[in-house]
């Protein structure tokens, strides 16, 4: 770009400063305009066309998501006795274990978080239990990246290659959620959320009743109550899967972040990027996946990955918040808001006060666990046994 601009500057040197400035600005904007218009012309016309298949998948996933929440809500009252007698989820510890373990079983955290709110809505579990169950679902969800890594290791990939990002993700999630639980508990116990009770509203409820009423009534009348709940859980799982497929393939390669493996970004910048990208994609694994094309060789600097995952942990609750709003239950909304607030508080405290020690600790743990098969085995056993122990507490 500067070739034209610079030559004008040289010829203008002899003139007065105002004229020089005016001409420089004129050339700059003419040049900029040409670059932008040229760039737009070069854009692939196909990339500008809407992808109807993805739009359709997205709309279908949203429709199924809303339906699944309503079905879970209808069926939750019937499954209450089963949950109470079989699963014995009656305190915060075993609901933490239940959420954690359930996420392992279905390899996804969001449906478990949705179920916890449906159970809260039906009065089967209390706010504290719902809170810990959601935290458990996040821990379980972060294990999934690790689980995929395990599969790769079993298929002969290098241990560190397969497990690094999964271990990092799990350790960071645990380091934020465990202290976050304490803050959430204090916030709920102090009734701080009483003044902020966000609800879906009567208008939303009536629209949902109008659209989904016939389908819900049909399912409720033709299936046993527990089956309604199970269908709801199944549909929420399917809707999240469809949403993952419907997400646009974000291309960040042309942004400031193209050199994510080469340069070191400020922790707050990467924290905000992780937060925003995860809020848009509603999935930590998708937002982590977006980092891959940013780095030509599939690497990311540890300095950049840690705050990014921290940010992702805050906005990963967006879909759970949607569930709470769809349930139109202020208690459920309060639980999700408290959880988001507490993770934000812990993240900001870490970023502001102990960022470097936290960064070192997370990386030391990652290399310690991934350093040998024995350590990895102990770690895997611990994260499998811990939720089981919590469940029997």
């Amino acid at each position: 770009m500067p070739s034209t601009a610079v030559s004008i500057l040289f010829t203008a040197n002899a003139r007065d400063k105002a004229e020089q400035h005016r001409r420089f600005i004129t050339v700059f904007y003419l040049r900029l305009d040409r670059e932008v218009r040229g760039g737009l012309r070069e854009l692939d016309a196909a990339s500008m066309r809407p992808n109807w298949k993805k739009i359709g998948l997205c709309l279908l996933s949203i429709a199924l998501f809303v339906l699944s929440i309503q079905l879970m809500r209808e069926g939750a009252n019937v499954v209450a006795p089963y949950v109470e007698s079989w699963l014995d989820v009656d305190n915060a510890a075993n609901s933490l274990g239940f959420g954690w373990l359930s996420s392992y079983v279905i390899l996804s955290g969001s449906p478990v978080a949705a179920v916890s709110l449906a159970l809260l809505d039906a009065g089967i579990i209390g706010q504290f239990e719902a809170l810990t169950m959601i935290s458990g679902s996040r821990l379980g969800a972060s294990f999934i990246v690790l689980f995929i890594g395990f599969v790769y290791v079993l298929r002969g990939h290098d241990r560190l290659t397969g497990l690094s990002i999964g271990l990092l993700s799990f350790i960071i999630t645990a380091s934020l959620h465990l202290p976050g639980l304490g803050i959430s508990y204090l916030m709920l116990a102090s009734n701080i959320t009483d003044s902020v009770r966000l609800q879906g509203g009567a208008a939303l409820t009536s629209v949902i009743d109008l659209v989904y009423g016939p389908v819900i009534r049909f399912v409720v009348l033709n299936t046993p109550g527990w089956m309604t709940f199970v269908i709801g859980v199944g549909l929420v799982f399917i809707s999240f899967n469809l949403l993952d497929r419907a997400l646009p393939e974000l291309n960040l390669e042309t942004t400031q972040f193209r050199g994510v493996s080469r340069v070191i970004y400020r922790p707050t910048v990467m924290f905000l990027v992780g937060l925003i990208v995860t809020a848009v994609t509603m999935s930590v694994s998708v937002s982590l996946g977006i980092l891959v094309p940013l780095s030509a060789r599939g690497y990311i600097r540890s300095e950049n990955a840690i705050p990014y995952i921290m940010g992702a942990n805050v906005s990963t609750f967006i879909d759970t918040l949607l569930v709470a709003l769809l349930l139109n239950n202020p208690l459920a909304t309060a639980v999700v808001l408290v959880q988001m607030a507490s993770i934000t508080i812990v993240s900001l405290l870490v970023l502001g006060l102990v960022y470097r020690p936290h960064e070192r600790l997370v990386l030391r743990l990652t290399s310690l666990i991934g350093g040998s098969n024995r350590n990895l085995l102990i770690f895997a056993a611990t994260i499998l046994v811990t939720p089981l122990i919590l469940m029997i507490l």
Partner: protein
Amino acid sequence: MNMLMCTDGSRCAAEALRLGAQIAREACDQVTLLGVIESPEEEHRVVRMLERTSNALCEDVPHIETLIRRGQAAEEILKEAEENTYDLVVAGSRGRRGFARFLLGSTAARLARYCPSPVLIVKGTRRRIEKILVYTGNAEAGERTAEMAGRIAALTGASVTVLHVMSQLPLCPEADMTDLECSSEVLLLSDAPEGQHLRKVLQILERLSVQGEAKVRHGLVIDEILAEARDGDYDLIVTRAHVASGLQRFMLTDTTEQIVLGSDRPVLVVR
């Protein structure tokens, strides 16, 4: 070489003058001694320090000029460096930490960020420069950093170690681990951008007839640079200035500032 040596009368400034004098004797045909007086009671000490340094250098340096400025040290040094062209600016660091640094800022950090010339920020009590650690950040601009380090090494007879830090983690199982885990020897033989850069830097040092070697460490960049400086007991760290503009200035971490603030030994920041 035209050098600006600065003092505010403090003990760390005295150390800076001592180390600066060592370089000046070998390489300078002109030295400007700048005394910055922040409060009237420091005036006597600053003037005495300037006189002593001038006397010590007068046999080896043909042109010595002495200047006095009044005001805040970092601002006055920057003004002088902007008004005149210097090949090297030498200043001491008081090493403020914690709340004091938060409140008063760091003179060293301001000089590292804004000084238009290469700036040597002296910390600790180094009498000689025998071992130099260079961190180029695997960037093209780093070649100038290596050249500056080579020139200092050629003058002082020091050996140079070029450090590259791998802090990357594999994002996906398809990532090639050979680059991330390899030693400096393997990296130098490879076609990886890091290997090409290290080869270029070593060629620069060879051209200046300086004994140089490459070293690779794995871990967090700042931690590893500071750890290498301590472990290898280097007398000087040479790094490039953090040059970022616009949005990048806001987005990128200033690694140079962190090296300057975290180091317990002299740091040369090359622009």
